[in-house]
């Protein structure tokens, strides 16, 4: 009897799956970075080759998850393709577990599981909590109350921990699950309940250094390439002695109509062409460099071509979906504005974009999640207000700065003039001068730490090698 290899088994199971064309599209996209929708072209790809290439690209199941969720976020049907991504991950999971030691929950988690199970069972929305847990753990949407009753809470919590061994993974899994549901608002709240209740599961890991990302204010899943993520994660925790960063704001899950509403707002309050140029410069820094110092009307042919290949809605999704914080989005916009250096056009667009995305931002995580032993020191709303006020101030001033300083000095001056945080935590940001510095002046040094500085690359990654970014980051306030 022929024994199939685990990969062959995965190929066989996937080839029998219901949405094979979509699976293939996503696999081709993951392996080649090309979106292929022509059935004839798709037929030319073999599942075996695609899966092999994918396994090569994503050497761990976490990286596979991160990669696939990042891709699905950029698609026009994120919910549908998240389901496809989940299916692929489930099929490939045994392959990862084969060669490596499977990490199972350690026994001392069991009393914790019990306590969490008890807490969740007492929740007023216990039924919905259980439905979402069953969906996460068993990939089934179970409506039948009787069948749900038969599933013990504790085993669900254990299964959950097996599947998501860091809080980032749990958040990513919850996000992707909620995105596939109709009642996203309701289940978003349920997801938060689960996330909060399950915090104790990750305390030990965080305390023992197991969760190395606890200092990063950026959820890594679905955002960064593993290598870059590692660079950021392994960076010395310069702020280790400082209070933990407060909640940052990220984009909440949006349904199709919300995206149309966002685009509508942009069209109402700014020039769609300029908005596209700016977003393109954010997402494709090479474009920004090519078109630097060009008037928007005189963009070079290559820039126009790229611009025509993307629609505004698509660019907006790619800008927002990786889940960066407001501070990161703002920094990316400012950098692009600087690079393009057309002060009469882009600052207004950037300020408008920030104002428009503001209502769709929600806190990324609670402070207690970063440091379970610490309580949030500032009200969340206060911090949100501070961040947004700082962003607006920053953009409002960028126009003047772009005119007054050359590019090499601009970033330095930004930090100084706008009271932005330096990457050096020992340096306190200078208080801004002038009337419109009120909002930022109200921020303490620690609060300013929340305005993380980062640069987005085409895939929504952080690019520490970017010279402009380095200039921006490296600027240490004088005086």
């Amino acid at each position, binding site marked *: 009897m022929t024994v199939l290899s685990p990969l062959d088994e995965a190929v066989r199971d996937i080839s029998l799956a219901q949405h094979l064309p979509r699976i293939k599209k996503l696999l081709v996209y993951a392996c080649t970075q090309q979106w292929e929708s022509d059935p004839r072209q798709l037929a030319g790809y073999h599942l075996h080759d695609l899966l092999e290439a994918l396994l090569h690209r994503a050497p761990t199941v976490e990286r596979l998850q991160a990669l696939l969720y990042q891709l699905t976020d950029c698609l026009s049907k994120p919910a549908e393709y998240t389901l496809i991504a989940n299916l692929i991950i489930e099929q490939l999971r045994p392959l990862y577990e084969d060669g490596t030691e499977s990490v199972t929950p350690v026994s001392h988690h069991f009393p914790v599981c019990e306590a969490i199970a008890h807490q969740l069972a007492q929740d007023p929305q216990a039924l919905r909590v259980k439905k979402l847990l069953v969906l996460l753990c068993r990939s089934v949407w179970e409506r039948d109350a009787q069948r749900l009753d038969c599933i013990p809470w504790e085993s669900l919590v254990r299964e959950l921990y097996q599947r998501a061994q860091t809080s980032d993974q749990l958040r990513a899994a919850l996000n992707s699950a909620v995105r596939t549901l109709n009642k996203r608002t309701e289940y978003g709240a349920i997801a938060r309940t689960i996330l909060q209740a399950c915090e104790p599961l990750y305390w030990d890991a965080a305390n023992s250094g197991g969760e190395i990302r606890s200092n990063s204010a950026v959820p890594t899943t679905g955002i960064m390439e593993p290598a870059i993520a590692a660079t950021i994660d392994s960076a010395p925790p310069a702020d280790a002695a400082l209070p933990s960063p407060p909640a940052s704001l990220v984009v909440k899950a949006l349904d199709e109509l919300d995206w149309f509403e966002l685009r509508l707002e942009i069209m109402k309050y700014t020039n*769609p*062409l300029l908005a596209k140029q700016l977003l393109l410069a954010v997402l494709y820094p090479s474009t920004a460099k090519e078109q630097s110092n060009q008037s928007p009307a005189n963009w070079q042919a290559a820039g126009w071509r790229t611009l025509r290949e993307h629609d505004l809605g698509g660019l907006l999704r790619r800008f927002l979906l990786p889940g960066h914080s407001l501070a990161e989005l703002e920094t990316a916009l400012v950098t692009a504005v600087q690079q393009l250096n057309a002060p009469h056009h882009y600052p207004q667009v950037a300020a408008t974009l920030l104002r428009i995305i503001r209502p769709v931002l929600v806190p990324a995580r609670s402070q207690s999640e970063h440091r379970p032993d610490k309580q949030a020191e500032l009200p969340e709303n206060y911090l949100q207000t501070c961040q947004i006020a700082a962003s607006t101030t920053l953009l409002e001033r960028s126009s003047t700065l772009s005119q007054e300083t050359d590019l090499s000095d601009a970033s330095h001056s930004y930090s100084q003039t706008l009271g932005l945080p330096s990457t050096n935590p020992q340096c306190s940001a200078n208080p801004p001068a002038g009337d419109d510095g009120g909002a930022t002046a109200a921020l303490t040094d620690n609060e300013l730490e929340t305005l993380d500085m980062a640069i987005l690359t085409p895939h929504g990654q952080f690019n520490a090698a970017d010279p402009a970014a380095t200039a921006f980051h490296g600027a240490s306030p004088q005086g």
Partner: protein
Amino acid sequence: MEASELLQRYADKDINFAGENLTGMNLSEADLIGINLSGADLRNASLVLSYLNRATLDYAHLVAANLSGANLTQASLVRAVLKDANLHGALLQGADLRSTDLTLADLLDANLMDADLRNADLSGANLTGACLRGANLREENRRYNANLRGANLRKVDLRGANLTGADLARVDLRGANLSEACLRGADLQGADLGDANLVGAFLTEADLTQASLRHANLTNAKLERSHLSGADLATVILIGAILPDADLSNANLAWAILTGAQLNRTNLSRANLRQTNLKEANLTDAYLARADLTDADLTDASLVRAELSSTTLTGAILAGATLPDGSIHP
């Protein structure tokens, strides 16, 4: 006339350039708010990111002109010829575009909110990502209606737009927002509405013969007496949709979700309803000759007087369903 002369005259408060020959002129980023260019010859002119707010461009010749990012808010372009013009990311909010020739024009990501497009010719135009909320495309009469034949309307925002009787045959409307749009009696034969949002849309008596609606969302849409013969409705969402007397013969409804849909007197002959979710659907008097309902879920559905004599019901779930003779399936 040179561009510098025009700009100088405009700076000197002269705004009347009606009928001037301005062919190929470069007026990019120029501030020409309120200028009168009626009947002017602006063929191949470059007006990229120019400010033409409230400008008068009636009868102007703008063939192949580059108006990318131009601000034409509330401008008047009645009977202007914009054939093959580049209006990529242009602002045309509230513009008067009645009887304008926009054939093959590029309106990618253009803002056409509240624009008057009655009798405009948009055949072959690219309207991908354009916003047409509140735009007037209404058919006044058979000879005075917007022509969108062969236009590309992908991801277009037509929420709540009035497209009564519009000719949208074979138009690409994939991923478009048509929620609450009025498409009563519209010709959508062979149109591609894949992934479109048609929640609460009015499609009464619309002709959707052979149209593709894969993955479209038609929750609570009104489709009374609509023609969906041979349409591809696989995986479509029709929760609570109203479809009495609709013609769904030969339609592909595999994996579709029709929970609570009103399907009274519908013609579902030879329709593919494999794995279709028809829970609590009303199929009273429906005609299901040779329809394939393999593995369909008909829990609590009403099949009163439905024609099922040649219907395939292998593996179908009929728990609580009211059968043609009025009895309840155990």
